[in-house]
C-alpha cells in the first residue's frame, strides 16, 4: 500500500515538473497559430485558433525560408567537414597511445568550455583576413571551434567500444591502418558517427553569436533573422515571432527524438 502511495506521489511530482518543461514550447506553438488580436487580448491557455497562414506569411511572403536554407547549408557543411576530419583523429586518439594526446585532449576541453563571445573577435579577424567574411565557408570554419571537440568526444567513446581484436585480425590479414579505418572502424562505429553528425548539425543550427558578425546579407542565418526580428519589432508582431521560433525548433525536436540516448553526452561536450 505504501509503495503504491509513494508511486502516485512520484508521478504527480514528475507530472508537475513535466508541465513546467513542456509548457513554454506548447505556448510558442499556440501563439504561432493565433491571429494578433487574440494574442494581445484575453486569450485562454488552451489552443483557440489554427491560423496556418501565419507560417505562410513568414516563410513564403517574408522569404524566411532563405534564412532557413542558409542555416541548413552552414550546419550541414560544418557537420560534414567536422566528421571528415575528426573520424581519423578520434581513431588515432583511441588506438594509438600518443604522448601528446593528453595535451590535445586538454586543448579540446578548453575549446569546449570557452565562451563563444570570446571567440567572436578572433574569428572575425580570421575570416576578414582570409576574405571569407559573409561567406558560407567562413561560418562553416567558425563553428569548428566548438564542433570539433564535441565530435571527437563522441567518436572516441564510439570507437573505444569496438573490440580491438577485430582490427588486429584484419591488420594481420594485410590491411593498412587506412584500410582498417575505412573497412572496419567506419562501418562498426556507424551509430556513433551518425549521432556525432546529427549533434554537430544541431549545435551549428542553434548557434547565434557568430552569425551576428560573420554572416553577410546573402548568408544571413535563421537564428540571426529571428534575433533581429524579435529585437526590432518588440510589441508588434508577436504571432510572427512565435512562428519563426517554432520553425527554428521543429527540426531540432525531431533530431532530439532520434538521438535521445546520446543527447546528454552531446550537451555535456557540445556548445549550446
Amino acid at each position, binding site marked *: 500500500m505504501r509503495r503504491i502511495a509513494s508511486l502516485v506521489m512520484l508521478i504527480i511530482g514528475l507530472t508537475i515538473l513535466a508541465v513546467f518543461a513542456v509548457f513554454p514550447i506548447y505556448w510558442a506553438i499556440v501563439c504561432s497559430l493565433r491571429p494578433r488580436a487574440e*494574442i494581445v487580448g484575453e486569450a485562454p491557455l488552451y489552443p483557440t485558433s489554427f491560423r496556418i497562414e501565419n507560417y505562410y506569411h513568414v516563410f513564403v511572403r517574408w522569404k524566411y525560408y532563405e534564412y532557413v536554407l542558409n542555416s541548413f547549408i552552414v550546419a550541414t557543411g560544418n557537420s560534414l567537414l567536422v566528421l571528415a576530419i575528426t573520424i581519423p583523429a578520434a581513431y588515432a586518439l583511441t588506438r594509438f597511445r600518443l604522448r601528446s594526446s593528453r595535451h590535445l585532449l586538454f586543448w579540446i*576541453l578548453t575549446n569546449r568550455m570557452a565562451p563563444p563571445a570570446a571567440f567572436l573577435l578572433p574569428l572575425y579577424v580570421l575570416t576578414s583576413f582570409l576574405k571569407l567574411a559573409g561567406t558560407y565557408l567562413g561560418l562553416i570554419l567558425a563553428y569548428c571551434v566548438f564542433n570539433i571537440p564535441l565530435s571527437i568526444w563522441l567518436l572516441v567513446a564510439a570507437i573505444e567500444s569496438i573490440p580491438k581484436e577485430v582490427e588486429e585480425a584484419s591488420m594481420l590479414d594485410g590491411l593498412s591502418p587506412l584500410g582498417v579505418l575505412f573497412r572496419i572502424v567506419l562501418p562498426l562505429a556507424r551509430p556513433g558517427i551518425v549521432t556525432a553528425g546529427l549533434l554537430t548539425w544541431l549545435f551549428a543550427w542553434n548557434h547565434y553569436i557568430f552569425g551576428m558578425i560573420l554572416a553577410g546579407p546573402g548568408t544571413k542565418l535563421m537564428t540571426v533573422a529571428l534575433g533581429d526580428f524579435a529585437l526590432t519589432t518588440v510589441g508588434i508582431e508577436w504571432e510572427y515571432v512565435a512562428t519563426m521560433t517554432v520553425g527554428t525548433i521543429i527540426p531540432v525536436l525531431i533530431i532530439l527524438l532520434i538521438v535521445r540516448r546520446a543527447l546528454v553526452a552531446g550537451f555535456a561536450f557540445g556548445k*549550446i
Partner: protein
Amino acid sequence: MNQKYPLFFLLPTIIVLLLVGIIPLFPVLWNSFHFYIVAARPSPIFKGLDNYRNIVSNPEIGYYFGVTLLLTAVCLLIQIPLGLAIALMLVRRFKGRDFFQVLFALPLGVAPIAVGTIWTLILRPEIGPIPKILSLFGINFNYMSSFWSAFTAIVLMNTWRWTPFIALALLPALVSIPPDILDACKVDGATYRQVFRHVVLPLIKTPLLTVIFIRFMDTFSIFDEIWILTGGGPGWSTRTVSIDIVRRVIFETDYGMGSALSLIMLYITITICWLMIAILKRGNLVGEL
C-alpha cells in the same frame, strides 16, 4: 606500429583547430595593447597595458563580472539540487518513465535564441500568461521594471532550459548504483538522508562535479537568451560579460577593449579547466587527462 599514421590521422583536425582556435588569437593579443576603435579612428595607437588596467579599475566592467558571477551562483544553487531531485525521481522503474525522460529532454533542443523569444512570449506584460495570471491576484508583474525582476526572469528561463540537462546527465550514474548496496543500508537501519549523504553522493561524485563545472562555464558565458529577453536591461543592470564583449565589438567597434576582454575570458576558461582536471585527478576520478 608505424608511428607516421597517427600523426597523419590527427593532422587535419590539428590544422583546423590551429586555424580557428589559436592563430587568430595573436592579432587579437596585438589589438589588446592598442587603442583601437574603428568608428573613432581607423588606425590603432599603441597604449601598452592600458586596456587591461581599464578592465581591472573600471567599476562598470567589475559590475558586469559581478552580475555574471551572481547569476551563475544563483542558477547553480537552484538547478543542481532540483536536477538531482528529478534524477532521483527518475531512478525508480515504473511504466511511463521513458515518456517522462522524453518530456524532460525537450527543452534541451530549443536554440538559446528561441529560448529568449519563447520566454519573451511568456513574460511580456501585454501578452504573457504569467503576468496575466499574477494580475488575477492583484500583482502587477513587469519583468523589465527593475533589476531584480529581470534577474528573476533570467533565472527562471535558465532553470527551464538547463535543469533537465542536469537531471539526465546524473541519471545514468544513479541508475548504475547496485540496488544491493541500498538494500543493505536499509537493513542496517539507515535513514534516507544518511543513505543519500554517505552512499549515493560519494558514488556520483565524478559526474556531479563534471556537471557543476560544465554548468558553471556555460552560465558564465551566457549571452543569447539574455540578449533577447532583457537586452542587458533595464538600463545595463543585467549586462553579462559576454553581452559587454558583443556590444563593444559589434556596436562600438572597440576592438582594443574587446580583444582584452576576450583574452581575459579565455584565460579564465583555461584556469577553470585546469582546476577541474586537478580536482578530478586528486580524487583519482579521471584517468584520461
